[in-house]
């Protein structure tokens, strides 16, 4: 099911079957070149598959944007241990709602992408880690997996290749931290989702202490198209080193929020004005959060950029998970900063101190500030605490909390200062998330 009208400006690669009747069924998939890419890779060596992926310049769609082919090349062979395939569908970064659509509308595309990964490292099994809130998707994906077994794409001696592979779904139970790959692996082992010390990276020591290919749901879903239509074609969709398209999840103050598949490098302002029908109620743009709530915001005048990993990084933010939050001139930045840090404080796993204490103190100070008890020196204090956390935590959650916080201060200091001048605003009710 589609939840928003598609845009004529979209370039549909991973979403091309969305909206077709029975798009989640294997017959629909097979009638539309389904599993053809996998059949092609059965004739290729692992090196050839990885070279093709590298040539496609596909980069991880989960947040870090790491080159997928390179990631796969780190998986050691001949260790005597099995290698596992893990799909990260624990989608939880605020602003992001694409994996949900991929599993709901085209689960076979995901399975095919995972099969190609499985075949590359001759893996015995793959797991699709789905956040617990997406229960209805577990049923959809389970049905798709069962269909794939019936047609011989999973199970023993797949298509006569002599290779056996199983795929299972695994549910999370509510924890943002489990989207971090090593915490996800802990969770998969039945433990609290606490990040592991890296290195070793999951490619070498991952699921069940074995070599592992771990990618985001959208990353796996993009792989069949690469082997069907060629790495060169895929790479040419975006700017150099940023191959393909991306599902851009637009939310906030635009007329037509929605998830749109666009080539990497698509101009942000065209996304707002043409794809999303401009700003709501004719308001002016104040800021954009370009890659999920953890990415540093861009002020309106910084938004004249293309939406690819390198251009957004050049603007000192990040493409992250593809969650684009558009904010109009009336947005209360202090309130936004508070709500953002409340989220990260709630989700911090508590394992390492800079994150656990940092998010807690930032929340306390911002809560007081927002509630009308702010002091002038708080502005620098918030900035200093956030800067102090950055780069000093086990996993990226600490950075994810720090980056938006210090950026809000740096880019909207005037708004924080104006808050002090205002009469004490009404005390906001305690968001009793604890």
């Amino acid at each position, binding site marked *: 099911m589609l*939840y*928003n009208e598609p845009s004529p400006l979209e370039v549909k690669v991973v979403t091309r079957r969305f909206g077709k009747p029975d798009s989640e069924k294997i017959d629909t998939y097979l009638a539309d070149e389904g599993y053809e890419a996998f059949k092609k890779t059965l004739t290729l060596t692992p090196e050839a598959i990885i070279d093709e992926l590298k040539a496609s310049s596909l980069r991880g769609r989960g947040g870090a944007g790491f080159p997928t082919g390179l990631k796969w090349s780190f998986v050691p062979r001949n260790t005597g241990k099995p290698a596992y395939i893990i799909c990260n569908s624990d*989608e*939880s*970064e*605020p*602003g*992001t*709602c694409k*994996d*949900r659509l991929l599993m709901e509308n085209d689960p076979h595309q995901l399975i095919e992408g995972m099969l190609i990964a499985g075949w590359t490292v001759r893996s015995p*099994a793959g797991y699709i880690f789905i*956040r*617990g*809130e*997406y*229960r*209805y998707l577990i049923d959809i994906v389970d049905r798709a997996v069962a269909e794939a077994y019936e047609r011989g794409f999973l199970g023993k001696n797949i298509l006569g290749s002599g290779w056996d592979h199983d795929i*299972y779904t*695994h*549910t*999370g*139970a*509510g*924890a*943002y931290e489990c989207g971090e790959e090593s915490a996800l692996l802990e*969770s*998969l*082992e*039945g*433990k*609290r*989702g606490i990040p592991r010390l890296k290195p070793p990276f999951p490619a070498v020591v991952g699921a*069940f202490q074995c070599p592992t290919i771990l990618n985001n749901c959208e990353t796996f879903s993009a792989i069949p198209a690469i082997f069907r239509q060629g790495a060169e074609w895929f790479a040419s969709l975006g700017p150099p080193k940023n191959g393909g398209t991306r599902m851009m*999840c*637009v*939310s*906030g*103050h635009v007329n037509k*929020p*929605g*998830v749109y598949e666009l080539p990497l490098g698509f101009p942000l302002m065209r996304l707002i004005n043409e794809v999303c029908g401009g700003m709501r109620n004719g308001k002016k743009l104040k800021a954009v*959060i370009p890659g999920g*709530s953890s990415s540093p915001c861009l002020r309106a005048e910084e938004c004249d950029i293309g939406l690819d990993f390198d251009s957004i990084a050049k603007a000192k933010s990040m493409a992250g998970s593809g*969650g684009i*939050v558009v*904010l109009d001139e009336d*947005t209360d930045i202090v*309130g*936004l900063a508070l*709500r*953002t840090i409340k*989220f990260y404080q*709630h*989700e911090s*796993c508590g394992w390492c101190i800079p994150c656990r204490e940092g998010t807690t103190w930032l929340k306390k100070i911002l809560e007081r500030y927002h509630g009308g008890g702010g002091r002038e020196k708080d502005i620098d204090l918030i900035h200093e605490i956030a800067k102090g956390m950055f780069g000093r935590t086990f996993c990226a959650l600490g950075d994810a909390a720090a980056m938006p916080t210090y950026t809000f201060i740096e880019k909207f200091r005037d708004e924080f200062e104006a808050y002090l001048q205002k009469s004490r605003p009404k005390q906001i*009710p305690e*968001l*009793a*998330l604890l």
Partner: protein
Amino acid sequence: MTFSPALEERFAKLLTSYPAGRTRSAVVPMLLYAQDELGWVSRELIEEVARRTGVTAVQVDEVIGYYSMLRRHPIGKHLVQVCTNICCMVVGGQDLFEHASKTLGVGHKGTTTDGLFTLEEVECMGACSWAPAIQVGYDFHHQVTPERFDRLIEGLRNAEAETRKV
């Protein structure tokens, strides 16, 4: 403990879904699927999951505090979760939560006196482009206005009254 045949089947599958000697992996899914059927995680359930997965009860117990969906107490028949994270907040999610609180007469994690509804303010649920969003049980509702919220609650109340008549 005995469960429904469907849940027993799910459990049996879970116990063979992971590599040999890795049944601990089934702990979180078993707890969540069992909670769906029983409503909450009881002491008895913890011990049962521990027994079936071959780990200690404390190893099961320790994950419950970590995962926000697992709960140690029964709740109302319908769990109403309202997202107030930033994408929902900027288009009225916070106001919607306050409205929901007024309509139901309970606060965060409160249960109505008739036991029908438990309200919860939650973090991002993955419906950002169709905000503000709520989940009732596992069902998503997008672009929820206060009026739509009230109609939804009214509908569930009426359905409950009907079943009681029968």
